[in-house]
């Protein structure tokens, strides 16, 4: 930023208030460095290459007025900036799709991605909240997953039954990917591997409904309990989103170019501005 003296010199036409605000922000930690500047380009600058070639083609009688090969006008790509995710997209919609599917409702504790804010809330409550466990012994704490239903249940199993009987979740739904990955997930977490795959695994793991219903904390590998996963709208949409995300992710995912991992204590997601969902009390 401009030094205060320099600011004084350039007050012509500049709003005093804007200056004051800018100079207020000038403490030592201010990382912003933009100043308007005139850019001089010397004769041999690379920015001038195409124009020079055009000129010399004309001098050498090679000029034609209609462009034969239209030079390609390139468009910026989009990239997921979440550390560890190297996905790149050619369109903004693809990026949004990817982000919403894989990064939006992420649990801080176990890094699972849930399809919606509500399911994330329920997941955190049921999996990572010790108070919940205590209260659940005495009251009906397990909420029905279907929005608007409002019923609560004493156990996970009761809820599952309710979902099947009342909300017609198919009882024989299997989410095979999840079942397979489950054992390997913990070991793979710290490994340096394809970031895209890692993210996808997380989602496979965590299609909210089955996890929430099975009520297993993240650190226990799911044993025999069948992923009697029940289909629901959320799940279906997760699947769709997954499929879409897999399609749109670059076919040749790059290795993460930086190793700056997000600490487990930090969580992104709806409403988690500077807060940490699922954790009460102070962060270290």
């Amino acid at each position, binding site marked *: 930023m401009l030094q205060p003296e320099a600011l004084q010199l350039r007050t012509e036409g500049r709003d005093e208030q804007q200056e004051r605000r800018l100079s207020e922000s000038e403490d030592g930690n201010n990382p912003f460095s933009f100043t308007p500047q005139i850019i001089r*380009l010397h004769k041999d600058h690379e920015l001038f290459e195409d124009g020079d070639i055009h000129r010399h083609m004309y001098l050498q009688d090679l*000029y034609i007025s209609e462009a034969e090969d239209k030079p390609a006008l390139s468009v910026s790509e989009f990239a997921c*900036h979440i550390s560890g995710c190297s996905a790149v997209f050619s369109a903004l919609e693809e990026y949004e799709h990817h982000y919403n599917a894989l990064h939006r409702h992420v649990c801080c504790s176990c890094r699972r991605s849930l399809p919606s804010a509500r399911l994330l809330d329920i997941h955190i409550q049921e999996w990572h909240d010790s108070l919940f466990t205590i209260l659940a012994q005495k009251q009906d704490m397990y909420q029905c997953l279907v929005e608007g239903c409002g019923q609560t249940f004493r156990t996970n199993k009761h809820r599952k039954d309710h979902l099947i009987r009342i909300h017609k979740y198919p009882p024989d739904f299997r989410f095979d990917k999840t079942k397979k990955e489950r054992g390997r997930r913990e070991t793979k977490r710290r490994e340096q591997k394809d970031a895209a795959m890692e993210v996808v695994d997380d989602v496979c793991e965590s299609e909210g409904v089955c996890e929430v219903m099975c009520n297993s904390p993240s650190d226990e590998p799911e044993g025999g309990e069948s992923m009697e996963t029940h289909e629901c709208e959320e799940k279906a949409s997760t699947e769709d989103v997954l499929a879409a995300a897999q399609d749109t992710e670059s076919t040749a995912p790059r290795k993460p170019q930086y190793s700056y991992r997000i600490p487990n204590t930090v969580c992104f997601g709806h*409403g988690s501005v500077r807060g940490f969902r699922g954790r*009460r009390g102070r962060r270290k």
Partner: protein
Amino acid sequence: MWRLNKARHKARHKAGQQGGNLDELRLKRRENERALRQARRDRQLVSKRLLLNEDEEQPDVSMDTAPGGHDIVSLLHKLQHTGTEKEAHLKALSKVLRDPAAQLTFIKHENSMHLLVGLLTGSNAQCRLQAVRCLHELSHSSHTNVAPACLPATPYLLTYLSGPSTKFTELCLYTLGNMCPDSNVVREKLLAQGIIPALASCIENQRHTLAVVEAAAFTLSQLLQARDAPEKIIPIVLKSTLPSRLLSVLTPDPQFGLAPAIECAWCLHYLICSTDDNKELLAQGALSQCSSLLVSLGGAVTEGNKEDGIELLIWPLLRCVGNILSSCPEEDLNAQLTDAHLPASLCALVQAYLHTLPALARETVWVLNNLTAHSTEFCSALLTLNLVPGLIQLLPFSQGINTMILRILANIAHKKKEFCVQLMQLGLLSALCATLKMADQEMVIQSLDILFMMTVSSPVVAEEFVRQDGLSLLEVLQYNGAAEMRQRSTYLLEKHLLSYQQHITVDNMPDP
């Protein structure tokens, strides 16, 4: 424009006559282009011009005569010993000298140049014409040792520049121009022999003969491109009357066409970009003239009057304006730039050439940056003339275009807080929400810089950004691999946007 017409005819002619298809031609052009690019990277970009005979349409080297050797010797012999028909022999010689091998043979032959110079300066006007034609063919050689061999002729060529015959003068000029790039020795000699004043008076005296003006400016441009030009040549040129002469011929003649203006504009570009201090040229009105011309050209382009080759003139003018702005003090800007239409014309040029010549569009936005960097007036103009939405729409385009556009928008935001609010109203915040997601790191960092300026300017802007869910974008960037992104996004969140959170609950209370 005789050059362009010729080129087009050549293409069609070749395609028709030799049965060669346009694909071959296209291939050849592409090869040539590649060679030119490589030459530029090696700082060896040189072009020569060949003035064709009246009866020629294309400079084909497909001669009926057998390759040079014997013909040269016999012709020289004839020239030496016959009294009459010298002109015919010279004519034949000039045709033979089109062949590169013959050129080399000629210069190796003893006394050949001496003979030619004798005929060049003799009493027979026709012989002089043919002799200069021979020299012209020689000058066009791609072998760098041919030009030095022609040095004995140069004092006379320079003298003839003030002569009355247009064709003859043109030939002299293009010959000299072709010789310039070939060697240091040649340039030094030419400078010592007074080529600069000769060119200056040539342009002055022959300013109504536009073909000569074109040739003289071309020759000057060859001198100005030399590697040692900034030290050895440009100071002399700047002290001469050439700059003002060039400026006076800058406006194209509607009948003759763009060619002389094109050459002059390129000369001015080489002059301007070689020196840091262009006060002299500014004082002579370079900025105002170049910018006015750009405005009228921009107008023509917008109306669809895209004359063939108009970009050949637009290109150097853009560079002149872009670079000379750095020599123009802020307070003088309005005095120098009398045409208020410049910002609008520049924006029009960007739109016009975005898809056909993106490099030209890129240079145009560069000029816009230089125009707006230190001028509140021009920033204001972009807003009041409603040019900003058009610029925002260019943000998807990469390879230097969108980064430069962000610079321009940042220039505007930097000036006044009202500008920030206006930019917000024109949709810049939602555009930034998209650019913050781009893969190009520079785009993200610049977006953060603009965002900082805008949110600092007014609570309205900060609130709007939060409303557009911008905070989640910043959160993501907090943990990005690049320190510049982390520092900026963290700073923005912590220092400025914290207070604008809309849902703060007990659970989510930030730690003190």
